């Protein structure tokens, strides 16, 4: 597959390297001459110096036949405009933009970018998982449905330990679909399932009722 990567920073460089290893045809467009030279030395002549938002540069690298266009510079506005130029001028079927400011995720979708990846959010979530006291971990976003799959752990001192699921005031948008007890095998929860200390719960919810779900399950 012919893939164009805009931005030869750390993300762009490692992305290009991975995609090359997978056997794809790659071109990286980078503004900085020293960085361009570095990438060419490391990966072979796959890096072109230029502005990835400029029609002339994109024509030169053959954007018209690209199947995928990925913009991963450090500036959200540059990633947005590069993807829009690729999409509307060159009809690239799939555009992916990196977002640094998580607030821009919705805006990018609204403005027609196929996939918006928020690097800040991904780092935040990975760190959250490592914080032992953090009670809710995001496992997966189902973006087009506005839902997310989360994991919660019931602390030993939670008020809900020993209660049946039917007694909990779960928000209507949330569903529990798996309980992983500390010792036993995972099981599907029913209304009469009793919560135990250290249970891990996998649930589906909307981002808005996440907090309500956390409170319902942990009792605080």
């Amino acid at each position, binding site marked *: 597959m012919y893939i164009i990567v805009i931005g030869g920073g750390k993300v762009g460089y490692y992305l290009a390297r991975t995609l090359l290893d997978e056997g794809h045809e790659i071109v990286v467009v980078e503004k900085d001459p020293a960085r361009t030279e570095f990438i060419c030395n490391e990966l072979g002549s796959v890096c072109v110096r230029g502005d990835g938002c400029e*029609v002339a540069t994109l024509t030169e690298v053959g954007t018209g036949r690209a199947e995928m266009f990925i913009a991963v510079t450090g500036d959200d506005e540059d990633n947005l405009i590069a993807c829009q130029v690729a999409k509307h001028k060159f009809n690239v079927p799939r555009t992916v933009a990196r977002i640094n400011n998580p607030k821009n995720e919705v805006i990018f979708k609204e*403005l027609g970018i196929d996939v918006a990846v928020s690097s800040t959010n991904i780092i935040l979530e990975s760190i959250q998982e490592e914080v032992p006291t953090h009670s809710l971990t995001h496992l997966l976003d189902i973006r087009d449905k506005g839902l997310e799959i989360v994991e919660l752990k019931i602390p030993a001192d939670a008020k809900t330990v020993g209660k049946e699921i039917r007694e909990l005031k779960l928000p209507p948008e949330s569903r529990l679909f798996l309980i992983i007890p500390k010792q036993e095998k995972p099981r599907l929860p029913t209304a009469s399932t009793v919560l135990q200390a250290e249970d891990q719960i996998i649930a589906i919810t909307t981002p808005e009722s996440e907090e309500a779900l956390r409170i319902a399950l942990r009792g605080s």
Partner: protein
Amino acid sequence: MKIVIMGCGRVGARLAGLLDIEGHDVTIVDTDAYSFRRLSPDFGGTALVGDGMDESSLRKAGIEDAEAFFSLTQGDNRNIMAAQIAKNIFKVPRVLCRVYDPLRRELFNSLGVEAFSPTTIFAQMLKEKLETETEEAK
């Protein structure tokens, strides 16, 4: 009319002054407070420190009731992105934007952004100026 301007450079500051004198309710946004020195001393509108590509800054600037939005920063991409936010997310009726690169202006004009390229306009003007004065000299 409520008007929001992003970018308090020479053009932004001057435009803000002109619209303010006409009696419009003008808010000008810039990321650098120092740029507000360019506003005329009798500017009666609001100068706000903030990023014109950020939804919450735009809300603070009153974009929800604005009837017109101008993006006039130094960055073409910033201007186009802010213009699209104003137009598509906040549904501002009139959105005007500066894009130096003539090719980019053309493309985004076709996507519904009302963009102007000072490069094209000024070059054309200079050429016409030269031609008329040459004729006068004859």
